[in-house]
């Protein structure tokens, strides 16, 4: 499909910043000649899926954008089969190539390889569908108040269809407590980190090279003092030092774009570094002078992580 063929874009708003990120990106790529429709259907599976299917049939968009959250990752591929069309998964970019074709850049092998994906036969009502992880695109347009970044640029005119499945008090109405033939029996909150890494301007990330729980806690304390957030790699999470999963960055964790990211004791596997591609400055501290992490950094230091953390704590006293 040519980018010029895209007259209408439908975005699913699941009640998190990702819809604003998708709209920001779409507006930058497709500009004002395209119509933007946002379906607000917060957080319940059966309703969001059914409403998306119905809205595509009524609105006939050529492109559908969905955040790759735990919910979005179920809605998008299901929609693809129902509408008999292709789904581009976890785009790290959406572009128009030299021939004017709509091009999705998709990571594989945990981000070690990027592939171009086209959905050539997509058309109105049988749209190209793409998912994007939260945090991959920056948000410069906010749909509503309350997300981390506020209105920065001029927003394109957006039509919002309110199909909110949540009741006014935020509770889930009885009729939507299902997924397929299964019933939602219980909802329990997850253990959350003290600060949210998605909105943080400074992230201090700890890897397995921190070596022990004590150093991890030092890193957390340092992040706190610097008004930043502490994050971790999968190896650090698995080490059981008390890092929480919602602060893990990478393919199976989150994507972040802070102004400054400092990594301590991180080898730099693509699984991790693909989650920080959008960061402003990247600094890496690693005792191995050949660490792969350095190839993805603006500044490097071949030092012991704990010594640098101690020096930082010392200097901000």
């Amino acid at each position, binding site marked *: 499909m040519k980018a010029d063929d895209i007259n209408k874009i439908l975005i699913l708003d699941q009640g998190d910043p990702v819809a604003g990120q998708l709209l920001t990106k779409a507006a930058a790529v497709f500009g004002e000649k395209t119509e933007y429709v946002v379906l607000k259907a917060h957080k319940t599976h059966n309703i969001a899926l059914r409403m998306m299917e119905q809205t595509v049939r009524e609105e006939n968009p050529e492109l559908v954008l969905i955040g790759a*959250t735990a919910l979005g990752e179920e809605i998008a591929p299901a929609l693809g089969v129902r509408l008999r069309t292709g789904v581009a998964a976890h785009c790290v970019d959406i572009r128009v190539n030299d021939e004017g074709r709509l091009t999705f850049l998709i990571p594989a092998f945990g981000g070690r*390889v990027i592939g171009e994906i086209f959905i050539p036969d997509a058309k109105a009502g049988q749209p190209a569908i793409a998912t994007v992880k939260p945090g991959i695109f920056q948000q410069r347009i906010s749909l509503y108040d309350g997300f981390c970044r506020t209105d920065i640029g001029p927003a394109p005119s957006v039509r919002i269809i309110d199909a909110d499945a949540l009741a006014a008090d935020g509770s889930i109405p009885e009729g939507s407590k299902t997924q397929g033939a299964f019933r939602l029996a219980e909802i329990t909150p997850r253990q959350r980190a003290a600060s949210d890494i998605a909105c943080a301007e400074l992230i201090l990330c700890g890897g397995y090279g921190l070596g022990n729980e004590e150093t991890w806690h030092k890193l957390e304390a340092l992040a706190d003092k610097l008004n930043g957030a502490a994050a971790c790699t999968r190896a650090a999470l698995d080490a059981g030092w008390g890092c929480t999963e919602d602060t893990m960055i990478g393919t199976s964790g989150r994507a972040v774009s802070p102004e400054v990211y400092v990594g301590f004791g991180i080898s730099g596997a693509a699984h991790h570094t693909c989650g920080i591609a959008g960061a402003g400055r990247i600094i890496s501290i690693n005792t191995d002078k050949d660490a792969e992490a350095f190839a993805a950094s603006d500044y490097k230091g071949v030092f012991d992580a704990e010594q640098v953390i101690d020096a930082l704590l010392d*200097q901000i006293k």
Partner: protein
Amino acid sequence: MMDMNILVLLKPVPDPEQERDIQIDTGSGRIVREGVKHVIDPESRNALEAALQLAKKPGGEPGFVAALAMAPAQMKDKLTEALAMGADEAYLLSDKAFGGADTYATSYTLAAAVRKIEAEKELQFDLILAGTSSSDGGTSHVAVQTAEWLGRTHISNVCSIELPDSAAGGALIRAVKRSEEVMLTFEGEGPAVIGVTRDINKPRLVTAMGIIKARKKPLTVWNIEDLVIDPDKAGLAGSPTKPGRLFKPETGRTAKEPWETPEEAAAGILEIIREAGI
């Protein structure tokens, strides 16, 4: 206790430990797979372990566990490994015509095989278990899309599956799904397709006894003619997404090394943080 029938979708993938060395052939623009060791996709292995634990509870009626893969013929040994871990039967879908399939064509073909296995065995699988996300493609589509083709319930990102009333003969399945903010507990009866995550269990190792037993277990290979499918929906031809160029990502960053001591590094880091206005 009820005996469960479970099918596991099992994907052979290049060894994730060797991904660092992954090469792109500059001529064809494809990933070089020759000489690369292949293994069972990690989350597929978790799915198989979950199936074995659910269907083969000690003391209960042993259920039936089958493994299904769509992969080139040389990946047959990965199914033998699944049999050695404890699966009862294995099916390999292998045909040039299946090559280059995106997730739409992959799931369409897998769903056709599910129907054929169910017809031949005269059963319906209570559960189809898969990984949520494979280590190579990693789209997280296949479990969901296979369910859609079969018209069954799907739940992904599942970190726990229990059968709360199986001792009383009940068929209730309880699955806990992890989402960003909450854990969602779903209950229902099969059939359903569930995508599991890596923390659901620790897969068992293959034993020598398992390998001996695996030799006697059936491993069936089917090609496109064995399945009731529309050939226009299989393989690259049947894929609505088409691949273009493949490349290794460029970070566009070149690391400066301005500091001589940890103290200098600390001062430099604070300076950069200050410059960024934080």
